[in-house]
């Protein structure tokens, strides 16, 4: 069974379906429904036997590279820190097929937003290569 990473982004990706204001500007009920949906997705994947992992990332990013011999690592917050792609988190799933991965990603994207309307968020679907060293 192939594994897929379904990446959610704070920024970046194709043109949004429609603009979404920051969550603190949503109605409290809509925030509630949105958070409940995220939990529901994990529950559903677990029940299906398709769940591998889900993680959220903080929005703080530091780019770093080797500084050279005897030099400290070099860091930056990157080119165009306000607009470049920024991953928010992921679901990792273990599924029958690419089609199933897309189906789940589309479901994730249907998460409720302001007014209970779907967010239509773009989800970045990436297949995980097999043959990686086992985790544990």
């Amino acid at each position, binding site marked *: 069974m192939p594994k897929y990473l379904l990446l959610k982004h704070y920024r970046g990706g194709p043109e949004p379906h429609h603009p979404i204001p920051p*969550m*603190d*500007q*949503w*109605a409290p009920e809509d*925030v*509630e429904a949105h958070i409940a949906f995220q*939990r529901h997705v994990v529950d559903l994947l677990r029940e299906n036997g398709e769940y591998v992992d889900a993680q959220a990332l*903080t929005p703080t990013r530091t780019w770093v590279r080797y500084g050279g011999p005897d030099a400290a690592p070099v860091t930056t917050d990157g080119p165009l820190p306000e607009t470049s792609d920024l991953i928010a988190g992921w679901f990792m799933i273990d599924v029958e097929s690419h089609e199933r991965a897309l189906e789940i990603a589309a479901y994730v994207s249907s998460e409720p937003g302001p007014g209970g309307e779907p967010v239509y968020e773009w989800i970045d679907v990436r297949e995980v290569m097999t043959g990686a060293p086992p985790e*544990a």
Partner: protein
Amino acid sequence: MAGASPYGPDADGLRGLERDLIPRVLARLVRRGEDFDAAEDALQEALLEALRVWPEHPPRDPAAWLATVATRRLVDARRSEAARRRREEEAPVEPPAAEPVAAVGDDTLFLLFCCCHPDLAPASQVALTLRAVGGLTTREIADAFYVPEATMAQRISRAKRALRGRPLDRPGDLAVVLRVLYLVYTAGHTGPPDRVDLAGEAIRLARQLTLATDEPEARGLLALMLLNHARLPARLDGEGRIVTLDRQDRRLWDTRQIEEGVRVLQSALALQRHGRYQIEAAIAALHDDAKRAEETDWPQILAWYDDLVALSDDPVRQDPAAVLGRAVAVGHVHGAAAGLRETDRLRDVLGDRHRWHAARGLLHELGGDLPAAATAYAEAARRATNVAERDHLVREAARARAGRARV
């Protein structure tokens, strides 16, 4: 306690007994001069042997039995080592004479000092303490800290190796032990509820520690843990959402734990050597004492925070969390504006942390400024490093933005 025992799938029956025996026997071996890691390996083998033998031949003194078998293993190991190195036939392989068994409390303290050796990194101190003193399995510890089992096994064996050859006969640093136990406790509170009960484990170890030392800070730490742990059943609702202290259903608090915590705290305070754990426990006790949030004795809490802050020469840099807690108390006693002024002093140190913004959000709400509160909560949510806390702060922000008062 979920998960299989490290000693095999049938070991659950031994589990309760074994968890108390491990530190006693291990301490006895290490005290006698055995290497920490060799002694632990030998003890594991002795426990395996116990699984086979005890069901039919229960020993009269299990600790002595385990110590004897473990010692035999250590001798065997040294013998084969000696053979491997092709040393003299007469290599000194006899174990030193057994010492009289020390009191249980002494063993625990001794072993805690070993595991919390100042040369080890905090993560290693925590892992080794849970393994060697707490008797948790490597898998349980790995699960509790969300790392693969192999990673945790490696961390533990590196820690044990780091202790090799170090003299483990001098008294250690009790302050480090207390810090490690508190780390274990707080990890239990931020971790998912369905895993190993680290908070309960920390309380168990702290309780053992108070039997071994009269140091009031050890009792202060135990009291602090009990008084906070008592509120655990009310901290999350059925959906896993964080419920803040002022909104908790106080009927869910564990009154038995509160009573024990207060008793332990009083016995510590009576010794007249106040330290940070005793003071934080006193603050927790005052929160626990209020029947309703509105009845909280904030002036008294502020007085304790004054004491807490006075423990540091430069509290803003050395103990910003205490200064932040005090600022909230100031807000309750002297008004939101005064509290916010107190937080200003922390901007350089804590301005990047979610806690600072969350406390300011609360103070803005106290002052009736919901838009400012919403902005502060949103800033806090952006900086949160825990999903439950992030979700909580987003909810608070949306509620305040919608102009709804705190309920």
